[in-house]
């Protein structure tokens, strides 16, 4: 099977869908001629023409607002916000409009819309190129929120998102675009071409939203992760030797609680890791759910390892980022308790 980087896999998903369905349109800042600052849409304008893939004015609210109108018309817009940190101007259109259109119109109008955005840290991007705002979407009824951790999933999930009848927030951990970054920023990165999850099937296939996947079977502890943190978790497990079951959530909403529950009931221990700031992060919801559903199976408190509650700093990035050392410590402490 061909190996692709994650950004190539994402581009491939759009290519496949634009080819299959005339209604799929792709736009955003620098997305047209140039093909996106991360090259996620490279070649699509040349292939499908300027009215299917085009540059927009720099106005995130405009991008999503126009996309809502297009989606209501019957198109399937897949738009890019250049960095998740710049989605805030579009937040109203996402929350008040896209998420509620089906509900408030009793299904007369719908909003099959994908909002792609590079997310997460690790690229020396400081406060405005590093954020992980997933919890701001999971709190909003009517949205689905997806975070892939590898090229193969990214393509299948993005195809599913474009085919989804409802709005999907598609968060792309940008530090994973080129390889499975595990938090060891001082080591060379393995490219996806050397990783089996870099194997991306050709053509159309779907990774269904709402299904987590067990990345590593384990008996001692359940480690819940998504995006970049899946790889950080793998590294921490390898380094500590804790026999953790690592669940890659893939979709945060709808959440695959069944898989989580089954694992925690088995292991009796749970650690949750994410890059986003701690307070009211998605880890809080996971912790609450695990506790609600597995209380009588838990041997130790559910623990969270997250970004600190500060703005994402620039120079202290690796002190902020919940890397393998911090995750490893939490694994060991949870086992010792």
């Amino acid at each position: 099977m061909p190996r692709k980087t994650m950004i190539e896999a994402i581009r491939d998903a759009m290519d496949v869908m634009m080819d299959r369905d005339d209604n799929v349109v792709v736009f955003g800042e620098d997305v047209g001629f140039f093909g996106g600052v991360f090259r996620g849409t490279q070649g699509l304008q040349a292939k499908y023409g300027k009215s299917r893939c085009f540059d927009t004015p720099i106005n995130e609210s405009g991008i999503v607002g126009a996309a809502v109108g297009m989606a209501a018309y019957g198109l399937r817009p897949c738009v890019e916000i250049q960095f998740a940190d710049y989605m805030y101007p579009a937040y109203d259109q996402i929350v008040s409009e896209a998420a509620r259109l089906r509900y408030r119109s009793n299904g007369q109008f719908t909003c099959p819309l994908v909002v792609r955005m590079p997310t997460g840290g690790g690229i020396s991007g400081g406060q405005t190129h590093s954020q992980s705002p997933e919890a701001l979407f999971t709190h909003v009824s009517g949205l689905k929120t997806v975070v892939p951790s590898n090229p193969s999933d990214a393509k299948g999930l993005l195809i599913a998102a474009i085919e989804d009848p409802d709005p999907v927030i598609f968060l792309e951990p940008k530090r994973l675009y080129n390889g499975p970054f595990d938090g060891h920023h001082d080591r060379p990165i393995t490219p996806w071409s050397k990783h089996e999850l870099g194997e991306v099937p050709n053509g159309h296939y779907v990774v269904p939203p709402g299904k987590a996947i067990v990345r590593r079977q384990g008996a001692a502890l359940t480690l819940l992760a998504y995006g970049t943190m899946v790889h950080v978790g793998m590294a921490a497990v390898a380094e500590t030797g804790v026999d953790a079951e690592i669940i890659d959530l893939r979709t945060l909403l709808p959440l695959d609680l069944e898989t989580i529950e089954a694992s925690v009931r088995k292991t009796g221990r749970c650690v949750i890791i994410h890059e986003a700031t701690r307070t009211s992060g998605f880890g809080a919801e996971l912790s609450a759910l695990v506790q609600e559903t597995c209380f009588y199976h838990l041997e130790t408190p559910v623990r969270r390892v997250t970004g600190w509650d500060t703005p994402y700093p620039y120079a202290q990035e690796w002190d902020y980022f919940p890397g393998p050392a911090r995750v490893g410590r939490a694994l060991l402490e949870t086992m010792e308790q």
Partner: protein
Amino acid sequence: MTDYAPLTLHVPEPAVRPGGTPDFSSVGVPRAGSVARPEVNADPESIRDLAYSIIRVLNRDGKAIGPWGGLLSDEELLEGLRHMMILRTFDARMLMAQRQGKTSFYMQHMGEEAVSCAFRKALLPGDMNFPTYRQAGLLIAAGYSLGDMMCQIYSNERDPLKGRQMPVLYSSKEDGFFSLSGNLATQYIQAVGWAMASAIKNDTKIAAAWIGDGATAESDFHAALVFASTYKAPVVLNIVNNQWAISTFQGIARGGSGTFAARGLGFGIPALRVDGNDYLAVHAVAKWAAERARRNLGPTLIEYVTYRVGAHSTSDDPSAYRPKTESDAWPLGDPVIRLKNHLITIGAWSDERHKQAEAEVLDTVITAQKEAESHGTLHAGGKPSVRDMFEDVYAEMPPHLRWQRQQAGV
């Protein structure tokens, strides 16, 4: 160190406040028929003046004059009159129903009936309005069922929106009336996107965006103008300037600009001002703008100069912030009376027939109301189900919502 006098903050203030004598001398009203009618493909820069004048057709004597007149047959005008009368009667009945506790809230159109009723007649099937809460005339002129409107207002068992939306936030795809969100200005840009979609699909449908004077200050107004200007979207951008935004007079949103229409000039978008209380003028300008859109000439901005005669909503009391008699002083008159007088002037109507029509309209509305009320009102009779509350959040209900519905015991 500095020679400059201290700065001071300028806060615009309306000409009069409660207790004062209404004064609309600042609203320069040109003679009916005096504004030229350019070709639809005129260079936007060559018709900038239209953003500073007011296009009017009906003069004081009830005659239709000038280049913007003459588009509508007598039958069409009579139909227009009927739409406005229905809207006014509908408003009166629903206001009363609100006072009777049959609904919690209502918003009326008094004085602004011509805007939405006349505009609607410039559209074709398939076109889409993205309205605000004060354009029910779009539905009435489209022939949407009065009963369905009322069922929405009553949130009863027949409410087409299943009780999920506040009164008057209608939605009717079939009638080209987009689901109203209640958030100001957000849907202006959606209209542009919808219009872009029509262009992308090489269709012929156009969109119409709606906004109030106050809401033009919202940032999504800018998004809409930028996108419409860049992609020459086939959309009509409507601004209903009814002089007030709840308690705030239009000067707060307009600031140092002469008019709201002028906002379009910086985008190269043709911008027109029209007498919003003149059914013929509204219709003519709407037609002109729709024609531009259909011919792929791009967007048009229209400012309707009108006046909100009633309260902002049933939660509002305008006597706290403007003179009670202000509406009497409004120089553009009443849209229903003006069209009625015109029809009488041209011999197509009479006071008698008007009275008779009033009775008929009232009858129609009351009949619809009775039927609607038989399906329940807000606190009595049939209502949407609790199960409906959990539906349509997504096309398919995800597990957590199924669990919650179960917890709710429904």
